[in-house]
């Protein structure tokens, strides 16, 4: 019940294309859903986040879509660039700030 399932495990996209990463959760106590970006040798860094009372949030080329009834959310990266090549983690957080991370998606954007 505490798991966050993330797919795909890896993704290859052409430059300018759309990258889509999906996540699903079970625990309805989660009330904050961040996405983190991690480059090799670095710690994860917050990319964008959403609360369950909002169905979509957009920041620049990054959009989160949230489906509360299906308990699913996804990250869309528009106009993907080689600099976006990294590992992306979805996460779910409870009110006590405990965070459960997905397994990660390794994105490679081909120039």
């Amino acid at each position, binding site marked *: 019940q505490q798991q966050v399932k993330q797919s795909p495990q890896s993704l290859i996209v052409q430059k300018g294309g759309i990258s889509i990463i999906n996540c699903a959760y079970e625990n309805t106590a989660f009330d904050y859903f961040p996405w983190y970006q991690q480059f090799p040798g670095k710690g994860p860094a917050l990319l964008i986040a959403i609360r369950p009372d909002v169905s979509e949030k957009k920041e620049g080329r990054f959009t989160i879509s949230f489906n509360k009834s299906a308990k699913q959310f996804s990250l869309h990266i528009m106009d993907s660039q080689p600099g976006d090549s990294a590992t992306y983690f979805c996460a779910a957080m409870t009110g006590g700030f405990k965070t459960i991370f997905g397994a*990660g998606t390794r994105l490679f954007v081909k120039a």
Partner: protein
Amino acid sequence: EAGVAQSPRYKIIEKRQSVAFWCNPISGHATLYWYQQILGQGPKLLIQFQNNGVVDDSQLPKDRFSAERLKGVDSTLKIQPAKLEDSAVYLCASSLLNTQYFGPGTRLTVL
């Protein structure tokens, strides 16, 4: 603003030896987290502090792992004795509210 500092960045030890990691969070951040990130997986929470009190240590292997956060600022994570399966990156993060800021991590190799 200075980020989360961790040391050492790399550590190689033999099994059954002891090791300690240090973390200095962002000034003013009350919540401090230690995560274990095994290669190819998402970060797994080991322990969460609120000031100098433990909020969650349910996934900390207490027979070999210990952590403390004296004076509610710096924190140390210790492993004694280490096992081969402890090879991972140990990430420290701190937060004021929902957003966690991660340090660069300590890569531990147990031989």
